[in-house]
């Protein structure tokens, strides 16, 4: 009994140790963002702040300069939301209906096509940058938020389709047969029967896509125009000073602010994320 107790404590200690490891960067960022620049210049980077200041946070949010515009991250936040929300919704919707076809309406060649879509998940985005720019130009979407939405939807389809397809294959075919006998057609079955069943996997898809799109920098920097830059680009602009003075505390505050929405989503909905992710794709 006692050895078991000791074992349990050891186990708990290991888990805590790992927790510290995972928390370390957040700790560094948080403490730095609460120090004055003076203290950073003179003191250790890993030490606790001697005197708390929230000035960097205020500055990062509302007055730090990104180019000639000195309004902090605030305006760019809105850009990101305008981009991320529609992109997440559209790619999830497209993924849902694609997944529905792949799982329940198989036709010859469907598997090959599905494989082709999946392979698209693995393409490095640097590769598509330049041809995509040309295409966006041709479509008249260059430098606009709809253009960014378009790009994120295109490269999000792979994962969302995978999620939904793997989820929908676990739904028995009989359900669809029953609906067919009942006289329902393709869209009727989807909207009345499959969609209402999809909450777990919609959660997964939304979280995944939101994280990807919100955190994206490469597409954001390449395909945005003046006025449509997402928050990651603004963050990068605030943080990167080539030949000027660096304000680390503001940088760190800005970084945390920019990450807050995704952090929030993970902390609040992380449980469902895991549950949904394993709901379809993995069978023990």
């Amino acid at each position: 009994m006692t050895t078991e107790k000791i074992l349990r404590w050891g186990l708990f200690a290991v888990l805590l140790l790992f927790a510290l490891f995972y928390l370390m960067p957040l700790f560094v960022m948080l403490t730095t963002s609460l120090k004055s620049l003076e203290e950073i210049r003179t003191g250790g980077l890993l030490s606790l702040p001697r005197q708390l200041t929230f000035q960097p946070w205020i500055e990062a949010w509302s007055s730090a300069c990104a180019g000639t515009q000195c309004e902090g991250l605030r305006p760019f936040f809105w850009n990101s939301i305008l981009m991320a929300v529609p992109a997440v919704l559209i790619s999830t919707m497209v993924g849902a209906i694609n997944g529905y076809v792949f799982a329940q309406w198989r036709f010859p060649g469907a598997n090959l096509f599905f494989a082709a879509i999946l392979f698209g998940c693995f393409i490095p985005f640097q590769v598509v940058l330049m041809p995509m720019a040309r295409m966006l130009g041709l479509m008249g979407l260059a430098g606009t938020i709809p253009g960014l939405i378009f790009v994120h939807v295109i490269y999000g389809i792979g994962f969302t389709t995978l999620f939904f397809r793997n989820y929908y294959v676990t739904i028995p075919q009989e359900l669809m047969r029953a609906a067919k006998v009942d006289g329902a057609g393709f869209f009727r079955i989807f909207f009345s029967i499959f969609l209402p069943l999809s909450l777990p996997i919609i959660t997964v898809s939304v979280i995944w896509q939101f994280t990807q799109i919100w955190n994206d920098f490469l597409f954001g920097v390449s395909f945005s125009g003046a006025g449509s830059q997402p928050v990651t680009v603004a963050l990068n602009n605030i943080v990167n000073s080539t030949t000027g003075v660096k304000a680390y505390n503001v940088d760190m505050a800005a970084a945390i602010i920019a990450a807050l929405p995704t952090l929030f989503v993970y902390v609040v909905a992380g449980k469902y994320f895991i549950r949904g992710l394993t709901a379809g794709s993995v069978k023990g």
Partner: protein
Amino acid sequence: EPTAEVLHWWTSGSEAKSIAVLQEEFKENGGTWTDMPVAGGGGDAAMTALRARVLAGNAPSAVQLKGPAIQEWYEETGLADISAVAEENGWADVLPAQIADHMKCEGQWCAAPVNVHRVNWIWGNKQILDENGIEMPSTWEEFNAAADKLQEAGITPLAHGGQAWQDATVFETVVLGLGGPEFYKAALVDLDQEALKSDTMKEVFDEMRVLRGYVDDNFSGRDWNLATAMVMNGEAAFQIMGDWAKGEFLAAGKQPGTDFVCAPTPGEGFLYNVDSFAFFNVDGDDKQQGQALLAELIMGPNFQKVFNMNKGSIPARTDVPLDDFDDCAKASNEDMQADSEDGSLLPSFAHGMALRGAQAGAITDVVTAHFNSEMSSEDAVQQLADAVAASM
């Protein structure tokens, strides 16, 4: 109504304030300024964005571009001709010839210079130097001797950040210092194979190896401003860095001459890094007017003064009075005028003034690989020559 969309990577701190001056002037002259800042990677991200914009068929009207990249872009897509503005304002008369050349594409003006950074500065902590009885070195032997002394005293002689461009910066000053302006031009501007494989180049790498010994252990990946802070805080004695480092000192309230000293790196010559704006072909009167206005303002004496005081560099125009500038800037300006005449005003390779991207990159690769490993000077010389040949 003139409009301009300006793509640049001066996004934060003093740089952002400096560019804001231009924006103000532009607005005062009735223009509409659209700001398109993209920072990161010393302009890499901005270049990525630029390429996307050009491919998409809506290039910005003005882009922060410099060195041979201007001509490269001209060859790929063509650039707007701003000769009218240049001639009207007599740019040729007020710009040093070498710098003016950078602004021309096949004889016509296509870009406007903002400033001149001197790259080959060496910065010292006055107090440490005084305590150890050290003068600013004027040759690399002197530097080595001083460094040895400092090392014995337990002081890190050279503050350095281990990033490829910083390695390259040190490298080019050594090339200039040991080989002289002629050699520098042959090796790093004309990419003469003889010069690249010469014994002088071997000596340069030898010196690099020696310098590596003067750097503390933690230099890898360090930002240049942290290295500057080391000099400021007395943790290190010297730093080899362009004059933007001055901004760090000044921001911390340090005074040139009393707290820190600035001097050209050992040897002769002036390595410049000129920031400039290139003008892309755009449609529409508004935009073309905007380009003209912008070009005029950039070269305007007022902007040149205000901007460069903010940024720590000196005006590209030689006729701007420097009374309000600090001593380092004044010295820099004098050297530039002098060197401009005797041909030792040279473009910095490390900052993309001398070579096209592929070649500059190839050299940087070898330099940084040598500096960060045990590679012998012979191997380095050989690799250097090979890499340059392969990148042509």
